C-alpha cells in the first residue's frame, strides 16, 4: 500500500483536476454568452439569438459538471489536509468564505434565471442575469487564485506559536504572484473556451449545419483565440519572471538547472535524473533560459543545489512545463492560421475543420500541465516556506484513502467520457437544440 501522503495528494489532484477542466471552459464561455446575448438583443435577424440558445445549453451542461465536482472540493480540504486549516486557517478561512459568499450564491441563483427565466423577466433583467453569472464565475476564480497564489508567495502574516496570523489583508490579497497567476488563468479560460467553441462549431459545419449562427460563432471564437494566445504567452513570461524572483527552486526544476550558473541554456529536451543530480540526453539552446527568465543573455539562475531537501521533484515539473509551453505554441499557430483563413481570406476549408475538431479540448492540456507544474513545483511545501505538505496530512488511513480514491477515479473517468460524448451529441443535433427542447415547451417570447 502506498503511503497516505502520496494517496492524499493523488486523491486531491484527481478531484481538483477533474473539477478545473469544467470552470476553465465555463468561465470563458460565460463571457462569450454575455457578448452573444448583447448582440442578440440588438439585432433583429435572430442569428445571434439562435447561437445563444444553442450555447447556453452547452454552458448549462458544463456548469453542472463544475458545480458537482466543486462541492466535493469543499469537503476535501478538511478530510485530506486538516493541518492546512490548523496552521494557515486565519488566511485561508476568510478567503474561502469570501468565495462562497460573494461568488457561489450569485452564480447559482442567476444561473436559474439565465436558464429558465427568459420568458419571465424583461430582456434587460435577463441580460443582467447573464452578466452576473459571468461575473460570479470570474469572482470565484479571483478568490480561489488569491488563496492559491498566497500559498505560493505568502506575505502579510506573522507566525505565533506555530500558527499563521494574518496581519495585512491588502498584502495577502495582492500577494506577489496573484496578479500574474489570475491573469494567466483568465486567459487560459478564454483560450480553452475559444478552442472549445471552434471545435464544436467545426464539427457542426462538417455535419452540414452551415447556418449563419454557426459561422458567426466560429468566426467570433477564432478572433478571440487569435488575440488571446499571444497575450497568454506574454502573461506566462511575466509569471515566469515572478517565479524566478519568489520561487527559485521551482524555476530551477522547470528549467532542469542543477547548479547555479550564468548564461544558462534552455533545454528543449532532457531526462532529469534526480538520483545523480544531472540530465541525460540534453538538447540545448545556448543562453536562452537566461534570456527568457532574466531578460539578459548572461543572467544568473539559481540551481537546485541551493535548495537541499527543499526543492520539488524535477522530472514532473520539468516536463509539465514543456507540455504546457508546447501545447500553448501549437494553439498559437492554430489560432493564427484559423484567423488568417477565416477572417482575412474568408474561406472555410474542410481540412482546417478536421484539425479544429480534435482540438476541441486542447485547452485542457496546457491548463492541467501548467497547474501540475506550479503545484508540484511548490513541493515539498503546501505553503511555501511555512507549511510542509506532509505536516498537513489527515488521519484517514491508507486503505480507506485507497478505496475512496478508486471510487473517485472510476466515477470521474466515466463522467468525463459522458461529458465529451454528450457535447458532441448536442453538436450533432445542434439545430434542433437551438430550436426546442424535446421535453420542454418551445420558447415563444423573443425575450
Amino acid at each position, binding site marked *: 500500500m502506498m503511503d497516505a501522503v502520496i494517496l492524499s495528494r493523488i486523491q486531491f489532484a484527481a478531484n481538483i483536476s477533474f473539477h478545473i477542466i469544467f470552470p476553465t471552459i465555463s468561465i470563458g464561455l460565460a463571457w462569450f454568452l454575455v457578448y452573444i446575448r448583447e448582440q442578440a438583443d440588438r439585432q433583429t435577424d435572430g442569428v445571434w439569438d439562435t447561437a445563444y440558445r444553442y450555447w447556453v445549453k452547452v454552458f448549462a451542461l458544463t456548469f453542472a459538471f463544475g458545480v458537482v465536482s466543486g462541492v466535493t472540493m469543499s*469537503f476535501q480540504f478538511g478530510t485530506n489536509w*486538516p493541518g492546512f486549516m490548523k496552521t494557515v486557517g486565519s488566511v485561508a478561512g476568510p478567503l*474561502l468564505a469570501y468565495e462562497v*459568499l460573494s461568488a457561489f*450564491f450569485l452564480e*447559482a441563483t442567476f444561473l436559474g434565471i439565465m436558464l*429558465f427565466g427568459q420568458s419571465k423577466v424583461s430582456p434587460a433583467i435577463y441580460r443582467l442575469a447573464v452578466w452576473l453569472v459571468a461575473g460570479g464565475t470570474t469572482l470565484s476564480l479571483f478568490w480561489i487564485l488569491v488563496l492559491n497564489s498566497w500559498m505560493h508567495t505568502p506575505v502579510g502574516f506573522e507566525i505565533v506559536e506555530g*500558527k499563521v496570523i494574518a496581519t495585512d489583508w491588502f498584502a495577502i490579497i495582492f500577494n506577489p504572484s496573484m496578479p500574474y497567476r489570475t491573469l494567466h488563468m483568465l486567459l487560459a479560460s478564454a483560450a480553452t473556451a475559444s478552442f472549445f467553441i471552434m471545435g464544436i462549431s467545426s464539427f457542426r459545419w462538417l455535419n452540414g449545419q452551415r447556418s449563419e449562427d454557426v459561422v458567426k460563432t466560429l468566426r467570433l471564437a477564432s478572433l478571440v483565440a487569435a488575440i488571446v494566445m499571444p497575450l497568454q504567452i506574454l502573461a506566462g513570461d511575466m509569471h515566469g519572471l515572478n517565479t524566478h524572483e519568489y520561487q527559485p527552486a521551482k524555476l530551477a526544476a522547470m528549467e532542469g538547472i542543477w547548479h547555479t550558473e550564468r548564461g544558462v541554456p534552455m533545454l528543449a529536451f532532457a531526462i532529469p535524473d534526480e538520483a545523480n543530480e544531472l540530465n541525460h540526453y540534453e538538447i540545448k539552446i545556448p543562453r536562452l533560459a537566461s534570456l527568457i527568465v532574466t531578460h539578459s543573455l548572461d543572467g544568473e539562475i539559481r540551481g537546485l543545489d541551493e535548495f537541499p531537501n527543499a526543492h520539488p521533484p524535477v522530472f514532473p515539473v520539468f516536463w509539465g512545463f514543456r507540455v504546457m509551453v508546447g501545447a500553448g505554441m501549437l494553439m498559437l499557430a492554430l489560432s493564427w492560421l484559423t484567423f488568417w483563413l477565416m477572417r482575412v481570406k474568408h474561406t472555410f476549408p474542410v481540412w482546417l475543420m478536421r484539425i479544429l475538431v480534435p482540438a476541441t479540448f486542447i485547452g485542457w492540456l496546457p491548463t492541467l500541465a501548467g497547474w501540475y507544474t506550479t503545484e508540484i513545483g511548490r513541493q515539498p511545501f503546501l505553503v511555501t516556506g511555512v507549511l510542509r505538505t506532509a505536516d498537513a496530512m*489527515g488521519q484517514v488511513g491508507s486503505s480507506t484513502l485507497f478505496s475512496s480514491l478508486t471510487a473517485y477515479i472510476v466515477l470521474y473517468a466515466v*463522467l468525463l467520457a459522458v461529458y465529451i460524448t454528450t457535447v458532441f451529441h448536442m453538436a450533432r443535433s445542434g439545430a434542433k437544440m437551438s430550436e426546442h427542447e424535446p421535453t420542454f415547451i418551445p420558447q415563444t417570447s423573443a425575450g
Partner: protein
Amino acid sequence: MDFLTRDVLVLTFAALMGVAIMAYVILDGYDLGVGVLMSQAKGHDRDQMIHSIAPFWDANETWLVLGTGILLVAFPAAHGMILNATYVAVLIMLIGLILRGVSFELRVKAPSHLAEFWNHVFVFGSATAGLAQGFMLGHFVVAFRDDYASLLFAALVAPCVLSAYTLMGASWLILKTEGDLQRRAARWGRGVLWLTALGIMLVSLATPAVSPRIFARWFSLDRIIIMSPIPIVVAGAVIWLSRWFSQFDGKDHDHRSWIPFTLTIGLFLLSGLGLGYSTFPYVVIDQMTIWDAAASTDTLKMILLGVVIVLPPIILYSAFSYRIFSGKSTHLTEA
C-alpha cells in the same frame, strides 16, 4: 467594535451555521425529495416535477457548501473531526450529489435512448445523497461512536431522513403543480409522513439516552414545562399534515396548497431547534464544544465582515429569484 467579544463571535457563527444547515435541509430537502419521487412518475409528470425544481437546485446546494464552509473556516477543529468520522458517508453522499447533478442535465441532453437511464441515475443519486445525510445525522446523534448499536441506529435514521426529504418534496409539488400530479403528491406525502415522524422520535429519544447531560437538560421539572411546547407542536403538525393529505382533493383546495409546505418547514425548524437545544454548546456531542473548535477571534471578525456585507444581498436576490418563479411551474420554458 468592542461588543464583538470572542463569546459573541463564536455564538454568532454557531447561529450562522445552524441557519445554513437548516436552509440546506429545507431547500435541498425539497429538491432531493422531488428527485426520489420521480421514481413514482412517468413522462410528462416527470418533466413537470423537474420544472418545479430546475431553477433552484443549484442555489439550494450552495447552502451545503456554505454550511461546510462555515464549519471549515470558523470551527476548523470540528471540521476535521466530523469529516474524518463520517468519511465514508460523506464519500457516498458526494457521489450521490455528483450523479444527481449531472443527470439533471443529461436526462435531456444525452442521446434520447439514454434518457430513461439518466432518469434512473437521478433518482438513485437523490436517494443516495439523502440516505447518506440521514446516516450522518444518526451518527452525529450518537456522538460518532463506532459500536454496532450506534451504527445500527445511524442506519435506522437514514431512511427516516430520506422520508423527511420526500415529505418536503411532496409538499413542494403540492405547492407548485396542479391536477392529477398534485393529488398524487398528496398521497406520496401521506405515505412518507409516518416514517418521518418515526425519525423525529428516534432522534429525540436517542439524544437524551446517549448523554446524561442532554437528559438533564430536557427532563428536569422546570425544563419540561418550558420545553414541552416543542414536542407538542411537532405532534400537532404531524396530525394536521396527515389530515390535510387525506382530505386533499385537488382543485377546490388549491388555494390552500401552501399549507403542507409551510407545515413541513415548521416540522424541520422545530426538529432543528430541539436538536440544537440538546447539543449546545457541543459541536461533537459531549466531546468538542464550539469554543474548543472555533478559529481565532481575528479570523472570525474577518469572516463576519464578509457575511455582514454579502448575506443581505444573497437573501434579497434569492427572494427575487423565488418571486420570478413563483406560482405553478407548469409552464416553465428553458432558454
